[in-house]
């Protein structure tokens, strides 16, 4: 018999992602906002990548958590034993209404129902006392 299944990797709360996880613990999705030009971005960066802005000043702001599936693929390869029982599973890119894009997973949606362009909303999966992982589900009507 196999021993206890290996858990999926729990992301490290790095200094750069600490505000993201702090928001997630309160069931809010947050992204970085350039304090000079106002552009929202994710993943976080040291410097705003808008041409000519290049500001180091940034803050974290909550966003709606609503968006659409820009694209997706179905992972059939096993890279980490934590995913052994889930293969094949979808990985999605969600484009938020506010613009930034997040790589994520879709929940409450059978694989064959996933569509590029489908509206989705954020939901949170509590992995530990520190880490709630934002995922997405089909948007409620």
């Amino acid at each position, binding site marked *: 018999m196999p021993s206890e299944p290996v858990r999926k*990797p729990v992301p490290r709360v790095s200094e750069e992602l600490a505000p993201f996880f702090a928001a997630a613990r309160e069931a809010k999705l947050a992204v970085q906002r350039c304090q000079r030009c106002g552009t929202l971005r994710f993943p976080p960066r040291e410097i705003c990548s808008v041409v000519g802005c290049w500001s180091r000043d940034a803050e974290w702001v909550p966003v709606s958590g609503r968006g659409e599936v820009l*694209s*997706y693929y179905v992972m059939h390869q096993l890279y980490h034993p934590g995913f052994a029982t889930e293969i094949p599973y979808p990985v999605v890119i969600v484009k938020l209404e506010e613009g930034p894009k997040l790589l994520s997973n879709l929940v409450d949606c059978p694989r064959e129902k996933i569509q590029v362009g489908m509206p989705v909303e954020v939901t949170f999966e509590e992995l530990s006392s520190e880490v709630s992982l934002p995922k997405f589900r089909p948007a409620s009507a």
Partner: protein
Amino acid sequence: MSTLRARTAIAGLGITPQGKVYGPSAIGFAVDAVRLALEDAGLHPQDVDGMLVNPGLTWGQAGQMASFALQQAMGLSDLRLSAAMSAGGATAGAMVMHAAQAIDAGMAEVVVCVFSDAPLKPPRNAGDKDASSSAYAFAGDLNAAYGAFGVNGLYALVARRHMHLYGTTGDQLGAIAVSQRAWAVDNPQAQFHGKPLTLAEYRASRFVTEPFHLFDCCLVSNGGVAVIVTSAERARQLRQPPVYLWGMGQGHPGGDPIETLSSGAPIAARTAFRMAGIERAQIDFCQLYDCYTFTVLVTLEDYGFCKKGEGGPFVDGGRIGPGGELPVNTGGGQLSSFYMWGMTPISEAVIQIRGQGGKRQVKKNDLGLVSGNGGVLSTHSTLIVSKHPS
């Protein structure tokens, strides 16, 4: 304005044994490739005065100053040009361009451009192959929590959106895999030499990152490839028919390929075709960077062989295979011959322009188009090569 058109040529080609070849290190393969290229050209080691190296993933510390490491490994002295270059799969083409510029400027005369790698080894740790230049790679830890690993998925995201917007089908990607394999069947240096692939076998191959099957993805190869660039005049005095460099260009679009569904080819092509003074319709064959079948499809669109979104129907029906109207990746490409990053397409272009393709030799070989592509459609290089000096 001066032009580089046909001022320089590729005069030597060295291809080591490719694939599951164990023993040599990455730098050892590089030495072998340079030696083979010198023999091919009829040049002596002391003729080399320039060395450009694209170190593969397994050069380790030597990769920090790869061209110096290779110079030392070969005992070469008094070089006038030396650099390691790194723009992913566009690097090979970029090295040839840099060599051509330096030669034309009188800064070097015989420049070797080398790629080598030896990634096939006893199993590695899972994370090792995750190096990627994607915008999403920053949050590596976070991606792992979602089970998003490797580069295959990043290209699959672009492909899936292309399928959604334009109706591109899995079988159309499969048509590319089948066509290229048909070319590889007649390439004795190909890892899939003599092993044809049917569309049914393609469909039955396992999914990797759906929509990609195993046969949508390039091979992994141990080996090395070197080319020698010199002036057109010097090339004419050497052993092999010169492969004249008529046009060259680069394109690095920025942005997110999932949204643009485009490579850097449109930018690179403008520069390269203007320099060559030819039209796309004059191209006899293409050697296109093929990390995935989908990359070939997008690249054909981006060079304008068909409209954006029409790459699927274009590759269907054998158009790019043996006997088709546009021969593409005539040695099998990286999907079916060997994966030496951008050196695979360059090496096959050299073979075809020289007329040394044996059973796979294309009938018309006056002008060939060669592309390199790095990251996730992030960097691009174009070479236009000809057997004619003008």
